[in-house]
């Protein structure tokens, strides 16, 4: 198990380093000179003084070799210094951490709602395989999985915020403000989870050991509860972790539409304003978290499966 953990951790570090290098390179490959952009954002007027450009280049250490710059950037980053935002001139860290908290709460709520719906509907569909309930659940979940957030969000705002005036249309204050964003975000994972739970349950129901359990005298209810549901829900753990990682970055649209001060919103602003330190900080945090979560999901999956657990014991 220790070796397994060590190997996974090493892979994780490599993945994060690779991602950070790509993120570090962003300003070098995007068109436009960031130094000029910075100056232009601070100075009124079109004329830019070349000496000012050179001074700022030296100040930012941009004349050094690329790898020196990368190591310096990485070292600062590791010690929690993500630099100053070009636009707000405040430390990026102070913007990233609160935003991360907002996004994490949004994503966790979303996944909890999606998983709850999926477990109920997926189990109901599998236990009624081929009947009307199953067909309805399958059809609805397939329809919802194709429904884009940028369409659904304005629709829900129109109905619940503008027509009925029961929920706020934007912002992040109080539990009611979370209802619409969570509903929009949860729809697709809920659909995806529902079909996964249904498939997992059908596999588990058809397993030979379920017949054997019935042959030992276990009632149908008892067999489903003890031998089918735990086995059938296993695929959900991995899937949920994948969606967790995906939603961290994928909540951009919802955060922008509902004006939620989360990571997606921060990233969006950073990119829009060419605020490179802000964008870099946000991306590295999101990528790092996503890699961490995927690894955690593998570990959890391993722990739930005796065959994997024992092989690494």
């Amino acid at each position, binding site marked *: 198990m220790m070796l397994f953990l060590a190997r996974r951790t090493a892979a994780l570090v490599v993945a994060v380093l690779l991602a950070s290098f790509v993120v570090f390179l962003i300003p070098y490959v995007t068109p436009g000179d960031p130094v000029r952009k910075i100056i232009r954002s601070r100075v009124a007027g079109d004329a830019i003084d070349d000496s000012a450009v050179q001074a700022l280049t030296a100040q930012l250490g941009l004349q050094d070799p690329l790898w020196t710059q990368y190591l310096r950037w990485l070292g600062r980053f590791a010690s929690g210094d993500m630099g100053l935002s070009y636009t707000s001139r405040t430390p990026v860290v102070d913007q990233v951490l609160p935003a991360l908290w907002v996004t994490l709460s949004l994503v966790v709520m979303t996944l909890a709602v999606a998983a709850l719906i999926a477990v109920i509907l997926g189990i109901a569909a599998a236990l009624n395989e081929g009947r009307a309930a199953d067909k309805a659940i399958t059809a609805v979940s397939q329809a919802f999985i194709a429904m884009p957030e940028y369409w659904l969000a304005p629709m829900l705002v129109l109905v619940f915020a503008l027509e009925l005036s029961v929920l706020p249309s934007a912002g992040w204050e109080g539990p009611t403000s979370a209802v619409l964003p969570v509903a929009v975000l949860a729809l697709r994972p809920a659909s995806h989870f529902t079909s996964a739970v249904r498939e997992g349950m059908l596999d588990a129901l058809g*397993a*030979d*050991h379920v*017949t*054997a*359990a*019935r*042959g*030992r*005298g*276990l*009632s*149908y209810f008892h067999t489903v509860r003890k*031998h089918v549901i*735990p*086995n059938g829900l296993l695929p959900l753990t991995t899937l949920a972790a994948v969606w967790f990682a995906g939603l961290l970055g994928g909540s951009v649209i919802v955060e922008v539409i509902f004006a939620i001060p989360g990571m997606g919103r921060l990233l969006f602003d950073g990119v829009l304003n060419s605020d490179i330190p802000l964008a870099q900080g946000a991306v590295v945090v999101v990528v790092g978290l996503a890699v961490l979560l995927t690894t955690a999901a593998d570990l959890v999956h391993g722990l*739930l*499966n*005796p*065959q994997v657990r*024992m092989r690494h014991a």
Partner: protein
Amino acid sequence: MPEGLIIDDLHLSLRAPAGVSSGSSARPVLSGVGLTVAPGEFVALVGASGSGKTMTALSVLGLLPPQIQAASGSITLGGTDLLAASGAALNRLRGGRIGMLYQQPKRMFNPRMTVGSHLAEPLKLHRGLRGRQARAQALELLTSAGFEDPERVARAYPHQLSGGMAQRAMLAVAMAGQPELLLADEPTSALDKVLERQILELIDTQRRQHGLGVLYITHDLATVSAFADRVVVMDAGRVQEEGPARSVIGAPQTACARELLEACALTRRRIVVAGEALGLGPSRDILALDGVTKRFAKGRGAKPALKDVSLSLREGEILGVLGQSGSGKSTLARLLVEVEAPDRGSITRKLRAGDGKNDGGSAGSGVPGTGVQLVFQEPHDAFDPRMRLFDSLEAPLLRQRTGTADGRRERIQQAVRDVELDPDLLDRYPSQCSGGQLQRLTIARALLLDPAVLICDEATSALDAVTQRKVLDLLLRLHRDRQLSLIMISHDMNVIRYMSHRVAVLYQGALVELAGTSEFFANPRHGHSKELVAAARAHPAACAAPVACSDLAACAHRMLGANVAGGRPGTSRSLELVSARDA
């Protein structure tokens, strides 16, 4: 009150599955099955696959698949009507008064739960034992199932058990509820002979100690006969023959009982019909390998899968290729059907008289590369599970881009009748067929392209003995009727001996021996061949009761007759009868 299990005139029928067009709505699965198992009695229920044995057992437990229903008849256990029992009453019976063993023991355990927790369930349900009492009882059950370290086994997960251990653990689970009847559905078919005997002895001990009635389902009439009081032979959903084990085996009255015995005889090395091409005459070579080498792993020290193999197949010959796993048998097959190309050496194909050298294998079908066809080991893997069998068989014909849909349908139906199957089967999906049926269909599919050579790569290894025998006989008939040359690749000495004119032995990628079949088995020259032949001889004759001489002779005559009746001029087959004493 009547004692033991009594099944009386049981009829089961199959509701046509949705989407499958079938003329009759309810096909019979069992037609009037009647049998009894008295307390303490060991009854063997014997039959080929698909004869209805398992359905009989499942109907006792009330665990029939939803598409199968009991139409009429009755099943009683100690006077309790099992067909009329309520759900709760059935739950008390299952695992309580009736224990069950299954064919694939490892798949019958929940992979996430230890053996101990499986034992805890029936102990709690049927005997009200919990906690320490239940644990002590579980260890006791495991001990009487032949485990020396019951505590370790109780903590083990199913994947940590071998097949034999899993079946013994399952026996402990089945005995946990102190049943009066044990249903054993082919519990040893997936195990080797030593383990089979061990399981049978364990069951027999439990029977003696607890007065347990045993209904033991198997297709292996011979092995079970040493333990069974009575034998019931089933075929096509009916009981065909019933009687004391000694008399059924000694003097079988019905054709299907004799068939089961013959199949047993093939695997028991009792009867050998060695088909030597004595008068094959100046037959030409249709496939010739010359110095063929093939390596998959690159780099120094990597052993070639085949090295410097020179071998030829004569027209109308059955060539047996023997070898253990990893000896290069399958590589040979892949080279011959041109899935792989040799690294060195050449393969010459002259599939039809007058063909030039290396014609690319285009034979009668007109599609290049179809003159040599391959039949695989796992019939279930050889079909796309999402395609109807008809579509799977039609696919190679569509490549020819000739003929009409009706013409293709006609050809496919003819090919299916040729392999002795009902064309109605073509509407099904692969999962709805037995292994034997599917293997016949792979043969039919191969024959649709009218090949000159059919390569059977362990084609019958995954089949039970009876089905194996039937498929082998089908191949012999096709060989005779269609002038088909066959390459039988197998690790099974008996299959090779039964089928081949000549035997080639592959060992670590090299051809180490090539000889006529009876010469090979009488006098193997290479060291590895000697080992193979010696191992086949040393195998204990597990056939407990002697096969009546008249049956051996009848069987031999049937084979001989078939060969003579349809034999080509100039071809005769020597017939060899090897008694158990010689072997």
